[in-house]
């Protein structure tokens, strides 16, 4: 590991977990959102060394084996996935939102996902997916 390396680089290039994405690498797009000790962070803004001893959960860790997590399944069913580059970060952000609040209203959903850019969907189907997943988990 080199000094100054980000957690994102560590995950993608050294650990072989490229699911977290590298769209802006300055914390604007949220494509690299991962859980760090249970808190969603932009992995590009965390120095790899800061993650020493922490539990990191990436998009690769959401599904239960062959079974998709309900949030993942909802994204697929609702048509919230187009190019899919923003999807890994959004899945972690939505996973976190629904863990905190099982019935978010639309302004809450919009606010919770304001740090995740998507260039394909205009977000509507992502909101549908959040509502679908929330409805199923209640």
């Amino acid at each position, binding site marked *: 590991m080199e000094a100054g390396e980000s957690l994102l680089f560590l995950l993608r290039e050294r650990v072989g977990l*490229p699911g977290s994405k590298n769209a802006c690498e*300055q914390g604007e797009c949220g494509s690299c959102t991962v859980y760090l000790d249970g808190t969603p962070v932009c992995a590009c803004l965390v120095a790899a060394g800061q993650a020493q001893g922490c539990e990191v959960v990436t998009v690769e860790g959401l*599904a239960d084996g062959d079974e998709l997590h309900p949030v993942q399944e909802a994204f*697929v069913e609702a048509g919230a996935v187009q190019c899919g*580059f923003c999807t890994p970060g959004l899945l972690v952000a939505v996973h976190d939102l629904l863990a905190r609040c099982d019935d978010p209203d639309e302004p809450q959903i919009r606010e919770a996902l304001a740090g995740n850019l998507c260039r*394909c969907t205009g977000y509507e*189907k992502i909101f549908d997916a959040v509502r679908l997943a929330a409805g199923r988990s209640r």
Partner: protein
Amino acid sequence: MTMTQPLTADGVGASARRPDADAKVRGDFAYSSDLWHDAMAWGATVRSPHPHARVVSVDASAALALPGVHAGLTAADVPGVNRYGLEKRDQPVLAEDVVRYVGEPVAVVAADTPELARRAAGLVEVAYEPLPALTDPERALESPALHEGGNLVRHLRIRRGALARADVVVTGEYEVGMQDQAFLGPESCLAVPAEEGVELYCSTQWLHIDQDQLAGCLALPKEHVRLTLSGVGGAFGGREDLSVQAHACLLALRLGRPVKMSYGREESFAGHVHRHPARMRYEHGATRDGRLLYVKADILLDGGAYASTSAAVTGNAACFATGPYEVPAVEIDCRSVYTNNPPAGAMRGFGAVQVCFGHESQMDKLAAALGMDPVELRLRNAVSTGSTMATGQRVEGPAPVAELLRRVADRPLPPPAADDPRLLPGGTSNSTRADRLVRGVGYGLSVKNICKSAGYDDYGTARVRLFAHEGEAVAEVHTAAAEVGQGLVTVQAQIARTELEVARVTILPADTEVGDAGTSSASRQTWMSGGAVRAACLAVRARLLERAAALLGEPAGALTIGGGAVTSSARSITLAELLAEGDVDETAVFRHRFTEALDPETGQGDAHVAYAFAAHRAVVDVDPELGSVRVVEIACAQDVGRAINPVAVEGQMHGGIAQGLGLAVMEEIRLRDGRILNPSFTDYLIPTTMDMPPTVLDILELPRPDSPYGLTGVGEPPLLSAPAAIAAAIRDAVGPAAAAALDRIPMTPEAVATAVLDA
């Protein structure tokens, strides 16, 4: 034609599940930036810091002295022709004696790690002798030539009818800033040297045109440059031109080792073309009762340093300069020019977006001058089937322009803003209150060509193989068509299910081992590659029936395929049994109807395959003092012919509207002396969840007579008139005095506040 009903589950017309979705939500889908080879080196690019300069010398010795740095290549190392380009090969793979824009590649290096490669790139010493930079497109034609043949890329004139004296004349000048495609997946690829030539895994919109250009640059026969599409993180036109492809291949072939390249966001802004900035002067003449008599338009597009697709964008801007209206007389001049700004090329809407802001601004201005409702004025002049466009081409097929506009106009308006800062201009920065806002409503109508135009021999190729696996028939579909997020893989599978009535379909990765599919742009790929898949399926079906006819001893015409079997009046044989004697494997090429080039003097001709139309209504709230804008709602009505996958169609509409909103109020690449001032998502803003309002979609399905299943392209229309409608709504909110100064998009808070203050 007879419509194929969705007899099979998840066939044509169903919102079928994306075949790539599971991998995408698991984080397992390999985008080009995720590619990995154990032996790979990393490439990095040395770019010009000058908009225009002579390259005196390039010295990579300091870079090569670093342990772990293996190559430093310049123009002299390009084995073939050091030029590429989509329409005109005028762009060097690596600069020779001159650089023409900030960010132009001058050298490439390869090293063991990405960090080392970046450091090595920084150590390459390039001596430049700066030259005067041409950054104002208005001065291009009088400035020293940046390319042999001068600074005019293309001038298209359209002349039709005689300009009559009009009761009412309105003029206007409008400007559109430079928009970025801002796809999230950075330019990246992996080039692997092969026994013969090179194998390239990359994200692109058109594998075969990449192959063609690369073969020329690398001095290899085309068949020795094999491309496979990797995961594409969005495209929107920005992946039509080469970026990393040639550089990675050069390095890999030189080192005899796989080479990966991947841009960061800042480099991505330099690494692809952008939407053409436009300056437009318009004059509309009409009768007192609101009938258009003529339109004059003079349009200037800044093509930047290299040609890319400027000529075709010029064609589109000219062809659609008058919008979806009947205009008896037109006088249109559209020019694209070379400058020392970053190259401009394809972006969703391709010239039709810029002029839509122009013609729709004019329609509103004309309505105001006539004292007429802007919806009524548009309805009065809207084209319909049988109308004649500015180029003299008759509109064939459905053209429900008036209907689309009525549908958005007749919708109830959203309620006034609630006093929740999240829903107000400025958002949670809490800078305004509901009682300080003014509301506006605006409309936009648009038209664009679907598929390639002007005589281009456009086609798609598909190979479909039907085979038996574990007692079941499986269809395998192979094309070179680029899945860029739009859902083409889903559509291909749906078509195969419908035509072959099989449940199991496999879509092979797109590569150059199968024939050309053409580009995933011009809203053409479902039409063209969808058409090719359908044609290949029909060929497979015919072969199956022949086989069954021989076995059953009945004429093929008496047999039907369904439920995994071929059935005659008396007997039935399963597809798996039929396939026991061998796979059925068919390749088909699909072409749309012939188009003609435009007359060089008059711009007249049947240049387009089809026209698509959309209507938008935007509702905005504006704080007039701060100039801050919140788009409250956008309604969009669009005729899609036939929705092959309704959820995917809605996704295209939502996404197109979002990019239109971005162009309307926030997105612009800002340049100073040819340098991009905001090459990051911190400074180049694209709409977030807080910026996007609820969008209301109205999808018409009026089948076309000339396309597979009656479909038409859906990718671009939902963007086209979104910016114009939002701009109109802002003008409506601030009132006519301030509106007159709002002639440029994006309409920034500064522009809005200044217009209000000066009014």
